[in-house]
């Protein structure tokens, strides 16, 4: 068990409830303006929230997993999450910025340099929420491959071999992309820049490394164009709901977000994570941190919270459902649930405000103080990076020659690295 419980806020549009944009204090005409997002992140930063994530996808939002729907009553449209995070970064100084970046149709090299650059712009507060794109219509945005229609029910049930194969392919590619990014981040040693006048050399080229990655869907030569980012390895977050994503997270992520509906479900998920961990080789530098996920709606009384949710549902014409638990309650009761998760051994929680800015304000003004009073929010004083804030150590560079190499340990042999990095093995 950890004494520190960490808090993330998942930002998306006007909030996670589909009708949130209609609330009196919602700002639906400003969703594409930097100032709106800076306001939200500063609220979180001022309250000592550890990180914010930004939702994104490789296509327009849509209800369900089929093609794009023609709904007019929900928020549609998003800024590129990584660029949004990079634009927010100069406005903040002590909160993690974790954009969603898709691995399926994007270039792993660009993903590696963009996440490294976010870490530079934020001066050590960058992260990456890894996401796959399994929707057939999103593949049509690039037009180079055809994906079968995704059936989440069959994926979770594991009953359809074609669906299982699709998921394994998508997450295998995600694992490869994380591996490429991690190698690119390390491909410059920290002391590669020498500015040595006598020999005329700006860099010591022996401290730059080809990554020579070869996977099923792509190869990347390296090294990165970008020197090793301030954190060495920016923080990788993966949301996971079933076996294959659990394997990806236990192999390659720093933080996994899980979605327990109740205590029994939590026990089950932790068991499945342990099973996944037993089948993969972990390539991330530190033990996996496990965070829970919850949609949060807060009012002064449980009755008022339920009424507010019902009012939002009525505006939407349907009961809001989520992949994770919806806590529509008082701040005290929300805090109690978070403390229960802390007591169950979880390392943190990513809160999804149902309404923005309303529920973000209530989380920061009421839930955070309650957790602080319970003594679970001790933070390292003056943490200078997100990794440090989260208690993740300073990672060694996989390519740096060890001063005292263990016998047989060929730290610079690319073949050594081909043994790792696949959650599928």
């Amino acid at each position, binding site marked *: 068990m950890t004494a520190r419980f960490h808090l993330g806020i998942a930002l998306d549009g006007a909030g996670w409830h589909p009708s949130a*944009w*209609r609330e*009196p204090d919602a700002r*639906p005409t400003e969703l*594409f303006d*930097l100032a709106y997002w800076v306001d939200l992140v500063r609220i979180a930063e001022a309250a000592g929230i550890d990180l914010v994530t930004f939702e994104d996808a*490789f*296509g*327009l939002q849509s209800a369900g997993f089929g093609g*794009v729907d023609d709904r*007019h*009553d*929900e928020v*549609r*449209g998003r*800024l*590129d999450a990584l*660029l*949004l995070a*990079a*634009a927010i*970064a*100069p406005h903040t100084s002590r909160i993690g910025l974790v954009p969603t970046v898709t691995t399926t*149709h*994007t*270039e792993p*090299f*660009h993903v590696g*340099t*963009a996440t*490294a*650059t*976010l870490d*530079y*712009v934020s001066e050590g507060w960058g992260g990456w929420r890894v996401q796959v794109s399994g929707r057939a*219509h*999103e593949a*049509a*945005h*690039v*037009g*180079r491959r055809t994906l079968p229609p995704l059936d989440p029910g069959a994926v979770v049930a594991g009953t359809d071999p074609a669906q299982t194969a699709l998921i394994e392919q998508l997450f295998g590619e995600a694992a490869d992309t994380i591996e490429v990014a991690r190698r690119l981040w390390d491909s410059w040693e920290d002391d590669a*820049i020498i500015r040595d006048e006598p*020999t*005329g*050399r*700006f*860099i*010591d*080229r022996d401290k730059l490394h080809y990554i020579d990655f070869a996977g099923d869907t*792509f*190869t*990347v*030569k*390296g*090294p990165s*164009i*970008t*020197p090793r980012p301030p954190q060495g390895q920016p923080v990788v977050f993966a949301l996971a709901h079933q076996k294959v994503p659990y394997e990806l997270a236990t192999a390659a992520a720093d933080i996994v977000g899980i979605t327990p509906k109740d205590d029994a479900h939590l026990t089950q998920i932790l068991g499945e994570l342990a099973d996944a961990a037993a089948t993969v080789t972990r390539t991330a530098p530190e033990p996996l941190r496990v965070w829970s996920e919850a949609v949060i709606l807060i009012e002064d009384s449980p009755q008022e919270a339920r009424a507010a949710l019902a009012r939002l549902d009525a*505006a939407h014409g349907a009961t809001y459902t989520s992949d994770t638990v919806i806590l529509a309650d008082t701040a005290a009761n929300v805090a109690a649930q978070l403390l229960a998760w802390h007591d169950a051994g979880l390392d943190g929680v990513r809160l999804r405000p149902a309404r923005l800015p309303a529920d973000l304000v209530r989380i920061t003004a009421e839930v955070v103080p309650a957790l602080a009073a319970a003594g679970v929010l001790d933070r390292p004083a003056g943490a200078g990076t997100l990794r440090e804030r989260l208690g993740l150590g300073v990672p060694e560079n996989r390519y740096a020659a060890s001063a005292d190499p263990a016998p047989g340990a060929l730290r610079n042999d690319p073949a050594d690295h081909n043994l790792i990095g696949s959650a599928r093995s």
Partner: protein
Amino acid sequence: MTLTSDAPARTRAERPLKQVHLAAHFPGVNNTTVWRDNSTAASQIAFSSFKHFAQNAEKGKFDFLFLAEGLRLREHKGLIHDLDVVGRPNTLAVLAGIAAVTSHIGLVGTLSSTFNEPYELARQLSSLDHLSGGRAGWNIVTTFDAFHGENFRRGKFLDGADRYARAEEFVAVARQLWDAWSPDAIAADKAGGDFLAEDAIGLVDHHGPQFDVTGFPTLPQSPQGRPVIVQAGDSADGRGFASRTAEVIFSRHAKFEDGQKFYTDVKGRLAAVGRHRDSLKILPAATFILGDTEQEARERSRETALLQVSPQTAIAFLEQVWGTDLGGYDPDGPLPDIDPVSTDQGVTRGRVRHDSDPAAIARGWRALAEAEGLSIRDLVIRFAATHTFVGTPVHVAETINRHVQEDASDGFVIVGSSNPTGLDEFVDRVIPELQERGVYRTEYEEGATLRRTLGLPV
């Protein structure tokens, strides 16, 4: 702004003074970026360097700042080239950061049309335009070789002859994506319940030789609608592409007569494709060295050149032409008397190649060196560290203005010789001279997009 292409040409005496347009180029990863002088050379990668550079350029009321792109580290003789500044950020991500610390200056990034896909890149550029309030620009490059391809999914997949065809189709698809949301797509009608208006988003359904793109883009029209298109290709294909597509050309033709020839050629192509002369700005790249007197400027130019061309850099530069190891030659001695070794791919990879006949170049260089008594290092300085404008601030301002008024350019892309403070002196000393002559803005127009700042048709 209304521009017609059939207005009678006015003589030079009749027409009003042209306004000078300036871009600021972040010093790149080549020998001209001095790193040896510790008093001026800061980190090439820290965000604080980009912030200083951008805010100084904005203080100088530059039209835009310009970032090159890295797809792979340069190699020399099969090894990573180690003599020049190396290491740069992802272009889009750092521009988004710069958007947050500036408010008027344009943000132009160099981005490949080969190793990107339209759906994603159009979205990123639109995002940058939204985040910056309409200041985004895209310098399209068409690198296609196997060396760079080794870092990307498709490797070398594109024939060199098709690179502009792909770029042109890329821009056509991107424009469809940028235009797909109707101007009033977002209703955000809280009472009525409609976030989107009727027919808010049109389907893009493109099928061509290079791309099959079907789907709905994720962003409303950005403040500029379409980011400004910049282009630097100099071949006949490149000029043709630019005359049809580009709004700014980043050219190599900074010398006066050469500049006039290029200007006349490219501007002359516009009428045939139905474009007005003022819908394309031509900005050659230019370096500068200032001094209180002409003499002092010349001395500083020589000092800077020696920092830009170290003995090792001089030899490496020659090796690019000779195609073989010249480590045994004295940089302060005469040119090698051996002939270049012909190689298929050249000794240096990851940068623009020299012309294709090394033997002829070597003969020409040897003749020049013998005629003028130049050492290897002197000769390399002549080619790799000659400064475009050398003189007093008044002289430099008058030279720039002459190029613009006499149609050798519409302005320049200015590159400082160190990072990130190399441009500070230009802003402090040359800009006021241009402003005094009434040919350069003294304030940005409040809320202007990059396209408007450049005086392009909106």
